[in-house]
């Protein structure tokens, strides 16, 4: 009879975490950010049909980086959870906090059960409030932990760098065009600091807009509206952009 190798629990968990992190790092990063009228989701996504962002319920949106089939599975699970809960109780009883808890439990159980491969995903669950103070953003890494975020959050391969870039520049009460522009700027920075152009047709943008008259606040921003928002910002911030670049250049 052969003796199994002993692997310490610490080592086993570290290996699993590294496996998951590597998988997530292969995916493109995305940004979720508060602006004056709600929450905006911005990511680079060459596909028109396979979405990184989607609606879960009236005020709740979902964003994911990592392995598509795994987060798609979680997304549909979330839609079923929310719809069933809203049908059983009331639409107001479906909350981002509840959903984030369920996702955290699900990811945590998968992560720590030896028989299953850890999910290579990182999720964001966001709920738009009636005022900016009521907005909630939760980040859920692969291991089932849950982080309550404010202002802006980035997930995916390049997340740390993008987050620190956003932390310095994000402020409360930005207009949608400003927030969008900032997110795109953050996403177009490579690990080595150089910038590249992300054309509008490769951007996936969605918002949870609290000013929408319908009870369902999630809306995709595509085509002309997206182009208009990206263009609207340029004349106003062109000088500041240049100033920023100069300042960064000086730091380097």
């Amino acid at each position, binding site marked *: 009879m052969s003796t199994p190798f002993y692997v310490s629990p610490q080592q086993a968990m570290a290996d699993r975490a590294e496996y998951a992190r590597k998988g997530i790092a292969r995916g493109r990063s995305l940004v979720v950010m508060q602006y004056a009228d709600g929450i905006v989701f911005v990511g680079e996504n060459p596909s028109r049909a396979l979405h990184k962002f989607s609606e879960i319920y009236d005020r709740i949106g979902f964003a994911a980086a990592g392995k598509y089939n795994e987060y798609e599975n979680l997304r549909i699970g979330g839609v079923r959870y929310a719809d069933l809960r*809203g049908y059983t109780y009331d639409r107001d009883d479906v909350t981002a906090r509840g959903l984030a808890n369920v*996702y955290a439990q699900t990811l945590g159980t998968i992560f720590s059960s030896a028989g299953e491969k850890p999910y290579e995903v990182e999720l964001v669950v966001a709920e738009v409030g009636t005022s900016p103070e009521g907005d909630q953003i939760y980040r859920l890494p692969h291991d089932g932990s849950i982080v309550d975020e404010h202002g802006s959050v980035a997930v995916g391969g390049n997340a740390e760098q993008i987050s620190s870039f956003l932390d310095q520049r994000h402020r409360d009460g930005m207009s949608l065009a400003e927030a969008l522009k900032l997110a795109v700027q953050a996403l177009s920075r490579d690990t080595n600091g150089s910038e590249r152009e992300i054309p509008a047709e490769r951007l996936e943008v969605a918002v949870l807009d609290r000013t929408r008259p319908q009870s369902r606040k999630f809306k995709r921003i595509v085509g002309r509206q997206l182009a208009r928002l990206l263009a609207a910002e340029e004349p106003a911030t062109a000088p500041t952009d240049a100033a920023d670049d100069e300042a960064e250049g000086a730091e380097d």
Partner: protein
Amino acid sequence: MEANTRSTGRLPAAFLTPGSSSFMDFLAEHSPELLPGRRTLPAVQGAIEVPHGTTIVAATFPGGVVLAGDRRATMGNMIAQRDIEKVFPADEYSAVGIAGTAGLAVEMVKLFQLELEHFEKVEGAQLSLEGKANRLSTMIRGNLGMAMQGLAVIPLFAGWDVDREKGRIFSYDVTGGRSEEHGYAATGSGSLFARGSMKKLYREDLTEQQAVTLVVQALYDAADDDSATGGPDVARRIYPIVTVITDDGFRRLTDAEASDVSRSVLERRMDQPDGPRAELL
């Protein structure tokens, strides 16, 4: 089977199993007791006394469709409720009005709305208008057992067909039989009178405002001859619910708008109690 929605634990396996995009199919597998059609009823003698909704009318016009309903619910010869709502948005581009057993109908509408929304979220695309109409058919068919015991629900479904770019109306019978109506349609106890009224007034080139007036006239005529249908209640400020669906989506007339149309119809009826006259030939 447990409807594990209260616990904050891990999502049950059924939630993460790839399956159909239908919420009803999911319910049938996971919590069948929540489906209205799955209930078993005891055998009863005679009709059960529960509130019934009455008249729903709809009319198309170039550019959209109007769906409206009166506000009365009756229980036998009694008025059970004076301000019941029987017309609901189904999704962005469609609406459903219900006549029949009020309790079941409202539950059916709630499930129907969720069914369309669930499909849209899972698939990332809307069902076609035909698809929506067929889905409603399936739900009515599921209610046949209860319909046989006197708890029938007969909806009227109207929407803007995004592909064909026109407003369309679908009517149903208790078995779930679906038929597309051209121009105008009505359902419920006052529908005979409403249909007669619209038959004389309807034209294919109505404007949106004229179509709104048409359905209010029809509801007035239904209330005039059917005791279960309520007319505009000026004293309590309860007016019919009128909804308009165009390529801009669903819109419900505000109380002020509904009041304006109802009052102008009422005003004309002071002189002409039977309403507008059609040409003899």
